Structures are given as structure tokens and as C-alpha cells.
């Protein structure tokens, strides 16, 4: 028997050029679970005006650590989409 579908609440952070493209720096999303980082990106790009200007396969972090797009996210996670890094 499969588990019932659940909804995950995640905080999505946008920085630098991605924040400018989407017109916001932060959004809380209710995403159908289970979900990966890629699912969260897909959900965000489809549900917010201008969000589809953010790339569909960005560099990402989950809870402040670099994460692959196939990383499974949990309720309450902080997911960040990171434009090309330019420190140093």
C-alpha cells in the first residue's frame, strides 16, 4: 500500500541575478511530496510570475549545503538556488 500524498512546506531562497529575474528573494512553497530539489524548482517556475526566467537546472543548496537536483527534500527545508558563483 502506498503512502498518502503529503504536502511539504519549503522555503526557497533566490540570490543575485535569480532574485532579479524572479522579482523576489524568498518564497514559501507548498509542494506535493515526495519531492526532489528539481521538483521544487519545476513547481516554482510554473507557479510564480517571472519565475520561469530562472534556469530549470540551477546550482542548488539544501539547508546551507550544496545539493544535487535529485536530492530529496523534507518539510521545513531551506532550498537555495545559486547563480554562477563569483567570489574571490
Amino acid at each position, binding site marked *: 500500500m502506498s503512502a498518502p500524498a503529503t504536502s511539504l512546506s519549503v522555503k526557497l*531562497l533566490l*540570490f*543575485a*541575478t535569480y532574485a532579479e529575474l524572479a522579482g523576489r528573494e524568498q518564497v514559501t512553497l507548498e509542494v506535493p511530496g515526495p519531492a526532489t530539489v528539481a521538483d521544487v524548482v519545476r513547481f516554482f517556475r510554473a507557479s510564480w510570475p517571472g519565475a520561469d526566467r530562472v534556469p530549470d*537546472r*540551477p*546550482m*542548488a*543548496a539544501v539547508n*546551507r*549545503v*550544496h*545539493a*544535487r*537536483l535529485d*536530492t530529496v527534500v523534507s518539510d521545513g527545508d531551506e532550498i*537555495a538556488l*545559486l*547563480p*554562477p*558563483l*563569483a*567570489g*574571490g
Partner: protein
Amino acid sequence: MRYLTRSPIDPGMLTVEAAGPADGGVASFIGLVRDHHAGRGVTRLEYSAYEPMADGEVGRIVREAEARWPVRVALRHRLGSLEIGDIAVAVVAASAHRAPAFEACRYVIEEVKRRVPIWKKEFYADGSIGWVDPTATARGDQSRERPDAAALGQVSE
């Protein structure tokens, strides 16, 4: 924040922070704001960061270097508005002998550039403004997917 600062960086203080009485050598890298990028004049720039992650990622890099070489590393990266000639980043590695100091210093600055979520907005002499994208410069076009994303996801402590 231990490694990020909005105040001017003093490399001498970093040397004091890193070096102890057993150390015979210090290697340092100092990154400056230059007045040009890709053939365009630059008048100033602004650094921003995902601050808690950036500070944590620098800490992981420093610990990696200190585990791999017999060194102690000190580092600061500026945030906010910088002028031409300002120190943007300074890395100092102190060791008993010079070889590990040089190697650790090089490792730390390369990993900082590759892994730490910091972004640079350049203000050009012609009045325009742009976010710096080192991956676009390196690959020469925008058509390919960035090669680093998957590899970065595998970075572990």
C-alpha cells in the same frame, strides 16, 4: 560571521591570526578589485552572499586544508561596495615550512572560488551594470549546461 566582513581587510592581522611560534613560513593570496573585466572598464563593484552558507562553506574549506596539510589558515572575504584596488579576499596559510603553506593557500582560494555562494555585481565605466558569470567566460557561450552543478552537489565535509 567569522569569514565575511563589510570592513576593510588587513592582511597583517590575518598573519597574526594564523601564525604561531612554531611557524616558519606564511603564504598569502590577496585578491584585489581590478579596473577592467572582459575588455570593459570597471569603476566599482558590490559583493553579496548567501551569508550563513558562505560562512559555513569557507569554514569547511579551511578545515579541509588544515586536515590535509600541517597549516593554520586565516581568511576574510569582503561584502558590500568596493572600490578599485580594495582587497576583496585575503587567504593566509602558516606552517613550519613553506611548501605546505603555499599548497594550502592555493587550495583554499581555488575552493572558495568554486564553492562559496558569493556574487559580484560590476559597475562599468559606460554606466551599465552586470552580474559576473565566470562560467560564461570560461565556456565562451551560454548554450551549455554548467558543468559544475552536479559535481558541487557531491562535495562533502
